[in-house]
């Protein structure tokens, strides 16, 4: 049997070159016309700790990683202990035969193959310990019978700046690994294959990178921010566009400066963006309100990670939704967009800039570590169908008494920017009159407060409603937002294979919330399940607030890890086949904790849960 869904994990310490090797493998699959998804889990350390990268390859489009493994490259013994149980029957482990002595019985899996290789010794012969990853790559290529030339091409591109000797050394290392497998393990039948497909016009990039490409396409020319995982690569990517796309990028002294500078640039008429995670956004909240009060267009990327405080810097979660909805003082409208995949990261970021300028209000692009830092395949972006819409922006002002904050029916006031003659005005963080002058009178306050909200009502009208994915009359209807889209789509596939039909409403606009559409779908659905990465079901709460409706069941997760398709499918099936409406809390990659609606805890042993998965 040949399996074309290949999931590969390389695991070791920080500094072992895990990410770079794994991504080179992924890219070599991309250029072979395959679909790839790559996601890494790593601690907040520069050296040491346990790091692993998952690369999943298939000839069909992929929406997320999987908890199952076809091949594990273990660069230390710890990696074997941690991940062996995730191997599929027929899977294998590549490890250093001289560092780790294991016998198959110890591993406890008679259904997998072991591929011991003298990785370190071979690496030293090719330039040093760091080459272990490339040797293991070569070995992987041999096992799955993939085209070495494609990998060599990526090696050459990757090390182009380092010169030919470095490229040659890497190609030599990959070949050594390849040959070792061919010479020593020719007798082992490894069932997984990665087969080259027809050429496709696809790209491979992270969510953060896709957001930046969207920003560039939208004409963002100013970025200011402060590094914070998992949003830092937004700044790095924007900085890489400085020369090619004329983007001024400022690494500021803190997040407060980051948002205020972006507001200054936005006020001066330039599309501007900042990016951070929850902790950085906490510092930005006052500035966020400033953008709303001065009606300055602004795009903020918030890549969520678990909190509170420093929380878990390199992990994922969806716990900041309420924070985004209510951040800063008093009440004012803000647009919150949560893309679900790299394509949405791109297209919705372009839309974010248009909305920010058309409605002169702050817009949040809400992602998380899983979406921002995972890499995925997508058709090459065009985006030419989305026009740059700058809204009511004045190139000249002819009226005698120009009023920057003129109270209009739409709520939007024609905006002049510094440099435009006749449009001089003061933008104030105080409540103000139509000219921008500070005012405290009741009627002025009310007129301005209402004007700000009128803009929001109009923005809501132009936002596309979410569309139901999957069969219309499914037994189960899944509701989710943000990065949960990928694992949920994969779970739907798994359920379909088991004869369970599910459809899904993935909501990208969380503010304004498409409440009418959500209610309509909820009323029609047979069983509604809310899936989100937090403890208090924040999305469900908002839906109840806006529609009065409650989801039948919920699947929640707040262990710092993204959902995976298998656990999700198991939990959904469990809910679909039980009479009671329940909440399931998923925990980790293996274990599941079940919570009855009465609050009684039912702990399931990991083995038992695995048995449930495998027994189906």
């Amino acid at each position, binding site marked *: 049997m040949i399996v074309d869904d290949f999931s590969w994990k390389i695991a070791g310490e920080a500094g072992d070159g895990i990410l770079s090797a794994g991504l080179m493998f992924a890219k070599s699959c991309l250029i072979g016309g395959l679909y790839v998804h790559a996601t890494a889990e790593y601690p907040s350390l520069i050296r040491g700790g346990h790091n692993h990268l998952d690369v999943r390859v298939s000839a069909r489009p992929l929406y997320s990683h999987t908890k199952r493994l076809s091949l594990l490259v273990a660069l230390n013994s710890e990696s074997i202990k941690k991940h062996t149980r995730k191997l599929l029957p027929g899977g294998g482990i590549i490890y250093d035969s001289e560092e780790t002595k294991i016998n198959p019985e110890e591993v406890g899996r008679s259904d997998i193959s072991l591929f011991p290789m003298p990785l370190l010794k071979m690496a030293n012969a090719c330039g040093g310990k760091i080459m272990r990853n490339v040797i293991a790559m070569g070995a992987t290529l041999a096992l799955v019978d993939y085209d070495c030339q494609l990998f060599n091409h990526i090696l050459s591109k990757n090390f182009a700046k380092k010169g030919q000797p470095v490229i040659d050394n890497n190609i030599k290392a990959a070949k050594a690994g390849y040959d070792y497998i061919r010479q020593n393990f020719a007798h082992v039948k490894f069932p997984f294959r990665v087969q080259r497909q027809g050429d496709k016009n696809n*790209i491979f990039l992270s969510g953060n990178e896709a957001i930046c490409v969207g920003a560039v396409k939208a004409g963002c020319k100013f970025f*200011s921010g402060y590094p914070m995982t998992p949003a830092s690569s937004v700044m790095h990517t924007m900085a890489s566009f400085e020369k090619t796309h004329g983007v001024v990028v400022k690494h500021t002294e803190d997040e407060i400066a980051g948002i205020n500078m972006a507001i200054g640039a936005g006020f001066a008429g330039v599309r501007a963006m900042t990016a951070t995670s929850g902790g950085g956004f906490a510092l930005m909240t006052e500035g966020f309100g400033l953008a709303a009060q001065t009606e300055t267009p602004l795009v903020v990327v918030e890549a969520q990670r678990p909190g509170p405080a420093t929380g878990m810097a390199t992990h994922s979660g969806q716990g900041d939704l309420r924070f985004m909805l209510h951040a800063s003082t008093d009440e004012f409208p803000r647009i919150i967009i949560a893309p679900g995949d790299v394509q949405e990261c791109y297209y919705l970021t372009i839309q974010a800039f248009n909305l920010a300028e058309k409605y002169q209000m702050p817009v949040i692009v809400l992602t998380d570590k899983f979406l921002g830092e995972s890499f995925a395949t997508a058709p090459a972006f065009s985006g030419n169908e989305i026009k740059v819409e700058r809204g009511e922006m004045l190139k000249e002002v002819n009226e005698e008494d120009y009023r920057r904050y003129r109270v209009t029916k739409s709520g939007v006031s024609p905006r002049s920017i510094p440099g435009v003659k006749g449009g001089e005005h003061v*933008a104030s963080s105080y409540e103000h009159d139509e000219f921008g002058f500070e005012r405290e009178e009741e009627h002025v306050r009310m007129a301005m407060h209402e004007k700000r909200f009128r803009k929001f009502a109009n923005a809501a009208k132009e936002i596309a409603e979410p569309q139901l994915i999957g069969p219309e009359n499914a037994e189960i209807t899944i509701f989710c937002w943000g990065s949960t889209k990928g694992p949920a789509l994969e779970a739907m596939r798994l359920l379909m294979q088991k004869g369970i039909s599910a459809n899904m409403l993935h909501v990208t606009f969380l503010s304004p919330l498409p409440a009418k559409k959500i209610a309509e779908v909820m009323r029609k659905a047979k069983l509604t399940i809310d899936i989100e990465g937090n403890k208090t079901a924040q999305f469900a709460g908002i839906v109840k607030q806006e529609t009065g409706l409650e989801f039948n069941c919920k699947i929640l997760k707040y262990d710092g890890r993204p959902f995976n398709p298998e656990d999700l499918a198991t939990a959904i099936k469990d809910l679909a086949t039980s009479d009671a409406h329940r909440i399931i809390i998923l925990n980790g990659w293996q274990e599941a904790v079940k919570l009855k609606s009465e609050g009684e805890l039912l702990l399931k042993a990991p083995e038992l849960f695995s048995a449930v998965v495998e027994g189906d």
Partner: protein
Amino acid sequence: MSMTIKDLATEEQPAWCGGCGDFGILNTLKMALSELGEERHNILIVTGIGCGSKCNHFIHTYGFEGLHGRPLPVATGAKLANPKLKVIVVAGDGDTYGIGGNHFLHSMRRNLDITLIVENNQVYGLTKGQVSPTSKKGTPSPSTPSGVIEEAINPMALAIAAGATFVARAYSFDMPHFKQLIVDAAKHKGFSLIDVFQPCPTYNRVNTMMWYKDNLYNVDNNGHNPRDRDAAIRLASTGMVNGKLAYGRFYIEEGKYTYDEDVAKVVAVPPVEQDIGNIDIAPLMQRFAWK
């Protein structure tokens, strides 16, 4: 086209206390702006929060009254977006040296071509009389009934150390002198700081107009060479000459690169002037196709 002081007026009137130094600063700033020769639509005055930070309501140019402590980053963003703007920041001593201290330090280190005028009345006026970072040690106030314990901050020494290239002190009611300082600072290429002593007749009963009359010493053309860094540091370390508070040009460094000049080496066309109508991302698609 030059503007008169009258041209610069708006229909708003300040509601400051009688004898407030803010009047002197507002009128002097308008005098300087009318002399500068910049057109009003190319001038941006960014302020923070405080009595004096309302000044851009009374000057007919572009203005941005931001958050307490944050005018410098707003000004920086606007200047980098449109380097042709003449950007002047007016903020209080609490705004700049207290809550906005981090921005103060880093803005000077950047030597961005903007001018910062700090209204230094050694007290928090708008919030009713608490001590400020420039209050003298021992000053009693509602927040420090037994007298403030910290030493006052020394903005002049800080500014020279941090990399500002035009560091001066003014007195709000020596208007001809102050006006010339603003004109020079605005024309200076690089970060210019003018720390302005000003009376707060309501909450600072010590440093009054009468007090300043007897306690100030103008160092301009008076034995101090602002282009001598060592002399500038010596002067700034005490801020005193002959037992009086020194004001005038403490330090001037010409020819040092400015942040905006260096940015222009990387991004040649200022952001605000770039056409964003139809940006081609095909080269980026190539980058991510890895072929």
